Each structure stands twice: as structure tokens, then as C-alpha cells.
């Protein structure tokens, strides 16, 4: 019995491998995502958005932020309020040649790691055993207590395995079943070949630029998750946590 218990309390090999492959690809996606955003740090809603149309907001993350450098606008039609064209006289920051390709390559790696993880989690019972709330675990009282404990930073030390509290389980489930699908689907909505065959993607995300904006916020939330995750790892015993996610014991 003690052997069985100690086996169950550590992270399994597949979880450990996909965790770190996923981590590396997420960090690459984040880095290249910011690189891509720096080429056009303006976000919009709907199907259309460019330097000649108003932005929802603009981020001061590169020299392209609110840059001038446009020739005089030429109207397409003689009617009032006609759409216009203008050409650029400003040399923009643009590293998308490698930025985009590395973003998609990292995306592929995350997809493969994700598929392996999902198959393992479903068929080896990882979801059922470790992530799905045990009976009564997601009760109001439990959440209230768990939130209060986190506020006071009264957090139990690491067990070195998947024995998760209610808030912890909820955040993992939100990442796996909400943020990940959302960021993948909004990413695909920016692909011209994908939307040509799956126009419903444009419909459910309100257009290509809305998808880009949602993609950005999903990435921001995943980054917030990563920061909180790291803080919790440190709070509960960094060395032990790293060891159990790497060598398993």
C-alpha cells in the first residue's frame, strides 16, 4: 500500500515530458507573438483594421507605435467619407519573416505535445483522477476557504504530485479547456486558407481582426497564468516542485 500511494503521488512520465515541451513552445510562441505584434501594434474589432482606419487601442511596444509617415490620402470614390489609400514613407519595424515561421513551428510543437497529453490524460485517467473535481470539492465553502487561504498566502507545501486544490484545479481546467481552444481557434481565424474553408470561424469571432484581438487577450491571460503558476511553485517549495515535474520524484 505505501508503494502504491507514493507512485500515485508523483507526476507521470507523459505529464512531465509534455509539460516541458509545452513550456518551451509556449515561451517561443509568446516571444514570437510579441515580435509579430510589434510590426503592427494596433488592435481592432471586426473584419478590417489598418493604419488608415481607427484602432481599438495601440500598444507602445515598437517604433511603429503611432508612427506618421504616410503620403496624402487618395479617395477611392468621389463620395463623401469614401475609403482612401495612402502609401508609407516610414521604414517600419518588421521581423515577421522569421517571427511568423517560428510562431507556427512552435505552434505545431505545442499541438503535438497537446495531442499526446490529451490522449494520455483521457485514457490513463489523469483527468478523472487528478483534474476533475472530486465529489463536493467545487463547493462554495471550499472555494471561499481556498480563496481566503491564497489571500493570506497560507498555502500547503508541495506534495510533489497532482494533489490539487479547488482553485488550482479550476485554473488548470480553464487553461486546458477554455484558453487553449480559444487561442488555437482565433489563431486559425487569421489564416486565409483556413477561413476559406471554415467561414464559420469568422462568424463566431466577429471577424478576422476581432479574432486577432481575442488571440492577444487569450495570450495575455495565459501569461498571467504562467506568472501566478511560477509564484505558486516558489511559494510551495521551488526545488521540490521542479524535481517532481522533471525527474518525477
Amino acid at each position: 500500500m505505501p508503494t502504491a500511494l507514493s507512485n500515485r503521488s508523483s507526476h507521470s512520465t507523459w505529464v512531465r515530458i509534455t509539460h516541458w515541451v509545452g513550456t518551451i513552445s509556449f515561451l517561443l510562441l509568446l516571444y514570437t507573438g510579441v515580435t509579430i505584434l510589434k510590426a503592427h501594434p494596433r488592435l481592432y474589432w471586426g473584419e478590417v483594421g489598418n493604419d488608415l482606419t481607427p484602432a481599438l487601442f495601440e500598444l507602445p511596444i515598437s517604433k511603429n507605435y503611432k508612427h506618421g509617415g504616410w503620403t496624402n490620402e487618395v479617395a477611392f470614390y468621389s463620395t463623401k467619407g469614401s475609403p482612401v489609400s495612402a502609401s508609407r514613407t516610414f521604414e517600419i519595424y518588421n521581423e515577421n519573416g522569421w517571427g511568423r515561421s517560428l510562431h507556427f513551428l512552435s505552434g505545431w510543437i505545442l499541438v503535438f505535445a497537446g495531442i499526446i497529453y490529451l490522449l494520455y490524460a483521457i485514457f490513463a485517467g489523469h483527468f478523472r483522477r487528478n483534474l476533475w473535481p472530486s465529489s463536493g470539492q467545487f463547493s462554495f465553502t471550499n472555494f471561499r476557504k481556498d480563496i481566503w487561504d491564497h489571500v493570506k498566502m497560507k498555502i500547503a507545501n508541495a506534495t510533489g504530485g497532482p494533489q490539487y486544490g479547488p482553485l488550482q484545479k479550476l485554473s488548470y481546467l480553464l487553461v486546458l479547456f477554455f484558453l487553449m481552444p480559444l487561442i488555437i481557434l482565433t489563431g486559425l481565424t487569421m489564416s486565409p486558407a483556413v477561413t476559406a474553408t471554415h467561414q464559420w470561424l469568422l462568424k463566431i469571432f466577429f471577424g478576422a481582426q476581432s479574432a486577432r484581438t481575442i488571440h492577444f487577450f487569450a495570450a495575455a491571460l495565459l501569461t498571467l497564468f504562467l506568472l501566478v503558476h511560477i509564484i505558486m511553485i516558489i511559494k510551495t517549495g521551488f526545488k521540490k516542485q521542479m524535481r517532481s515535474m522533471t525527474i518525477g520524484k
Partner: protein
Amino acid sequence: MEKKYLISRRTALITGVSAIGALLLPGCKKPTLPTYGNLLRMGDLLTYSAQRALLPGQSLAKEYSSGDISSFPATGTVNPADETTKSFSQEYANHLRNGFADWKLKIDGKVSKPGSYSLTDLQKFPLRKQITRHTCEEGWTAIAEWNGVPLGLVLQQAGIMQSARFVNFYSYDGWIDSIDMMDAFHPQTILAYGMNGKDLPIQHGAPVRLRVETQIGYKSMKYLQRIEVTDQFIDTGDSGWAWYTGI
């Protein structure tokens, strides 16, 4: 007849794509899609193979209504007749001075009837009018109405051969790029001579530009000079940009 043609080409393409795996084996030197042994380009190749395998190739990209037409920045080369830029072309400057009256689009390579098409010749083909969204790699989008002729019709008129696998485009501003047969025969892949109801403006690629609605904006080459049909991929070197940009 046209349909039969497309299917045999599609079969050829699928065979081609499945052969990519074998071509990646070391020691195999047959020119194939650009990877340059470079990890990034191999990722692009994976995207290309996956999209070709998983997506039905001839589905139409979303078309919009005239009320959706938006402002449209002109980027990249905006005038090959401008002597002060690297992309200056004396030939283009002459055509522009002449109102493109002597301009002709050359079509050669794996076609039984190589030839040159004037603007009037191209306008004699059935017109395709489409209001589509341009997606720039930078991150912006814009919607415009394009008038043109489906590239597939012109290629058939030129007698494209069964062995054809790629269509190369040469532009006055010095660009060379290519697309595969799936995109070349896509109904929305057009040689556009009109934009928003007028002649194509100079900054948007006059007199004729390509529109590839299933890929990112930079594949829709401006200032077309020559079209060459080939049976193998012509490697023009690593431009630093992905060759396939359906994503």
C-alpha cells in the same frame, strides 16, 4: 472537361505532397519546396502539407458587400517608375508614360501556346468581380473590390500541360514568386486589372496584379510582367519569408 482537368491536377498534387516526405530523406537532391535544411522552412512545409491534406482546396474565401469596402494602405513597392527607389524599372516607366498601351503579359514555360496578352486581351476573358479581404503579414486587413480574369482560364487558354506543378510570377519591381496548381486554379485566384470599380491604381500594382485570396497579402504580386509555368519548383533562394502563406 474543365472539371476533369482539375481533378487530374489535384491528384498530381496530392502525389507530389506525399512525395515530400521521401524528398526530405538525406541524399535526395531533387529540387522541391523551399526548406533550405532550415528548421523554420521545414515548419512552413509542414503547414503547407497539413493544409493541403486537411482542407478542401477549392473552397471560396469570404466575399463581402460593397458597403464593407475599406481604406487600403499601399505598402511594399508603390511605383516602379520612381527612379529614386531600388525597385526602379525603365521598362515600367516607359509603359506608364504610354498608359500601358504596349504592355503585354508574357506566358511561357509548360504551355503549348506560349504568348503575350495585352490588357485588352485579358479583358476579353469572362470577368470575375470579387470583394475580398486582404490579410497582410504585418497584421492589418483591408477589403476591396477586384475586377479580373481567373488565372485558371488564362492558363487553360495558354494550353497548360499536364506535367505543370507551379506557376511563377515575375514583376517589374524585381520580385519572383510562385504558387502551386491548387491555388493557381482556385476560382478566386485572379489577374486583377481593376480595383474598386476603376483601373488598378499604380500604388496597388497597375496595370495587372495577382490576387491569391487563400494566402497572405505578399503572395498577391503587383506589377506583373511575366508568368512561367513549370513542372518543378524553381528555388530563387531564401528571401527570409515563407513561400507558402496560407496561414
